[in-house]
C-alpha cells in the first residue's frame, strides 16, 4: 500500500475533511504496525490468562471437555492440602535459596575477575565464561550428569584422588541441590555480562577520590561498587528468581520427569506438568499455574519495594 498524500505535512492547504489529519494518520499507522503484538497479546497472553483463571475454578479435562463443571474454589482448597504441590513449592524454594545467591555471587565474582585491568586477555576469558549459556540446556545437563555420575564421573574421581569420598550427587535427596546449582553455573553468562557493564559504568573518579582518602579495596567495593551497582544487582536478582520459578528442563532431564530421588526434584513446574499432561487434571493445573503467577508477582513487588529503600539510582529519586 502506498500513501500518496504522505507529504500532507507540507500541503496543509488540502481540505482537512477529505483526508485524515496528520496526527490521526500517524496514529493509524502506529496502530497498524503494533497490531501484530496487540493481536498476539490478546490471543496468547491476556486471553489465556483469563481463560486459565476461569478453568482454575473447574474440573476441566481434555478427555471429556464437555463434562466440565464449575467447582468453585475446590482446586485451591485441594491445593492447600496436596502433599505434591507443597513438596513442589518447598523444593523450588529450597533450590532458590541455594541457587539464587550462588548465581548472584558467582556472576559478580567472575565479572570482577574478567573486568580486572590486571588480567591478560580479558576478552578471551569473558567469551569462555559466557559460552556455556549457548549450549542447549538438555545437552549441558547431560554433560553435567556424566561429570557428576557417582561411579564414573570425573568429579568424584578427582575428589577421590585427594582422598575425599564424593557424595552421590544425583540419587541423594540432599546432594541433588548442590548438583543442580553446579549445573546452573553454566547459565551465569548473561548476569556476568550485565554485571561487567555495571562495573564499567561506575565513574572512576569515585575510586580515585576514595583512594586519596585512604580507602582499601574492600571498603571501596562495599561503599562504592555495591551501592552504584545496586540497580543492576536488583535486575539480576528479579530475573534469577523468575527463572528459578520456571525451573523445569534440568530437573526433567535428570530423572526423566520422575522427580527422583524421593520427590527431591519435584519442582512445582514438574508437578504442574504432570497434573496437566499426565493426569489430565487441566483445571487443577490451571490453579497451580495461577498460584505460581501470584507468587512470582508478589516476590517481584516485594523485591522492588525493598529496592525503593536500598537501591541507589544516580540522579536522585532514591
Amino acid at each position, binding site marked *: 500500500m502506498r500513501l500518496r498524500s504522505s507529504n500532507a505535512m507540507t500541503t496543509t492547504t488540502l481540505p482537512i475533511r477529505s483526508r485524515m489529519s496528520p496526527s490521526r494518520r500517524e496514529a493509524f499507522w502506529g496502530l497498524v504496525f503494533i497490531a501484530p*503484538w496487540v493481536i498476539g497479546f490478546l490471543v*496468547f497472553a491476556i486471553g489465556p490468562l483469563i481463560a*486459565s483463571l476461569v478453568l482454575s475454578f473447574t474440573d476441566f479435562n481434555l478427555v471429556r471437555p464437555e463434562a466440565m463443571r464449575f467447582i468453585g474454589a475446590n482446586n485451591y482448597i485441594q491445593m492447600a492440602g496436596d502433599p505434591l504441590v507443597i513438596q513442589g513449592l518447598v523444593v523450588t524454594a529450597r533450590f532458590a535459596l541455594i541457587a539464587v545467591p550462588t548465581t548472584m555471587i558467582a556472576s559478580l565474582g567472575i565479572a570482577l*575477575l574478567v573486568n580486572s585491568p590486571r588480567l591478560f586477555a580479558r576478552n578471551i576469558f569473558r567469551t569462555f565464561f559466557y559460552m*556455556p549459556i549457548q549450549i542447549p540446556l538438555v*545437552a549441558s545437563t547431560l554433560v553435567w550428569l556424566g561429570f557428576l555420575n557417582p561411579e564414573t564421573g570425573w568429579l568424584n574421581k578427582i575428589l577421590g584422588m585427594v582422598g575425599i569420598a564424593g557424595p552421590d550427587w544425583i540419587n541423594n535427596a540432599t546432594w541433588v541441590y548442590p548438583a543442580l546449582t553446579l549445573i546452573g553455573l553454566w547459565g551465569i553468562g548473561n548476569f556476568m555480562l550485565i554485571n561487567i557493564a555495571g562495573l564499567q559504568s561506575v565513574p572512576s573518579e569515585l575510586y580515585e577520590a576514595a583512594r586519596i582518602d585512604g580507602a582499601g579495596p574492600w571498603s571501596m567495593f562495599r561503599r562504592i561498587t555495591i551501592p552504584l551497582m545496586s540497580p543492576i544487582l536488583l535486575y539480576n536478582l528479579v530475573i534469577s528468581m523468575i527463572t528459578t520459578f*520456571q525451573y523445569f528442563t534440568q530437573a526433567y532431564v535428570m530423572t526423566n520427569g520422575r522427580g527422583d530421588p524421593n520427590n527431591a526434584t519435584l519442582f512445582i513446574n514438574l508437578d504442574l506438568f504432570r497434573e496437566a499432561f499426565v493426569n489430565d487434571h487441566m483445571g487443577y493445573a490451571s490453579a497451580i499455574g495461577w498460584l*505460581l503467577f501470584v507468587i512470582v508477582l508478589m516476590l517481584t513487588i516485594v523485591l522492588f519495594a525493598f529496592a525503593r529503600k536500598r537501591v541507589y539510582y544516580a540522579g536522585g529519586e532514591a
Partner: protein
Amino acid sequence: MTATRATRLPSFGDGGPVARTMRRYLVRSSVTLLAVMLLSGFLLPLLSMLTISLQDAGQGTISGAPFYPASPATGTFQGAEYDIYVVPIDGVDRSLMLVTKGRVQSTFVDPADPNQTPIVWQGAWRTLKQSWTFDPKWSNFATVWSQLSFPRLLFNTAAVAILSTLGAVLSSALVAYGFARFRFPGKNIMFVILIATIILPFQVTLIPTYTVFTKLGWNGTWLPLIVPHFFANAFNVFLLRQYFLAIPRELDEAAMIDGASPFRVLRSVILPMSVPALVAVTLFHFFFSWNDFFLPLLYLSGKPDLQTLPIAIQQYNALYVTQPSLIQAAALMTMAIPVVVFFLAQRAFMRTVVMTGVEK
C-alpha cells in the same frame, strides 16, 4: 635509571621503574593464572564429555582403566591373541603378554620378541595391572548419528528455528517501528504492558493455549512452536526499538517527502541501518528456538518424525542410561552448531545481552 641503581638487583620493595614493572607483571600473571584455573574448572565437564564420548561403553566402570579413551592392550603369540599386563621383573615394569594363567606362577611372552623363551613369573597374575593403549572410539559418533536419525533431527530443528525466527524478527521489527516512530493514544501504557509480559510466567497461559492448539489439530505439528512467534515478543521489540530510536528522524522525513509510505521507510531507511540489531535478534531467537525443550516436549513427544534435537536426545538418554559414551557423544553433537556459531558471532551475542539488560 641511574648507574648506581642498575648495579644492584631490583627488589620488590624498591620503588624503581624495573621493580615496579616487575611487580605489575607479577600481579597480572597471578591474576591471569587464577582466571585460567577457574576457567579450567568451569569448563572441565566439557573435557569430560569429549573424553567419555570417545570411550568404549564399559570403560568407565572397569577399575584400573585409565581416564582417557583406551582399550586393553593385546598381542599375538602363535596365532592367538593375549592380553598384555604390566609385570614387575627385577624391579623393572615390563609389558608382557599373559600366555598361561596360574595362581602361583604364570607364563609371559614379550610382545616385542615373541620367539624368545617364555618368561615364568612367580606370583598371582590377578594382582597384576592390565596394560591399556590409547584407542579413541570415533565410531560412537557414527552410532549416535544413525541411531538417532541425526540428519532428520537437524533438519527438523533447523526448520522450526528458521521459521519461528523469521516470524519473530519480522513481527518484532514492525512493532518496534510502530513504537519508535508513531504517536498514538495509549502508546506509553501499551509499551509498559509489553515489557511487563516478560514477567508473565508461561505456566499461567499454558493450559488454555495447549487446549486451543489441540482443538485446532495443531498438537503433533510444528505450528505451536512457530505461529506464536509471528506476534512479536517483548525482548526483541525492546531491543529493536532502542536501536530504531537512535536513527535520526530526518532520514525518514526526507524519504516521506519523496513520497515513501511508512512501510517503504521501514524497508529502505530503518532496516538497512539496523543490521547489527537485526543480526543480534536473529541469532538470539534462532538459538532460543534451537535449544527449546519444553514446547517440543509438549507437542512433539509422540512424533519421532517431527522431533527436534533437544527432545530426541532427552529420550535417547532415558533409553541408554547405561551407555554414557553414546550419551556424551550425542550431547557433543547437539551443542556443536550453537557453540561454533557463538564463537563466530560472539560480539553480536554479548553486546545484545548488555543492551537489553542495562540500558533501560
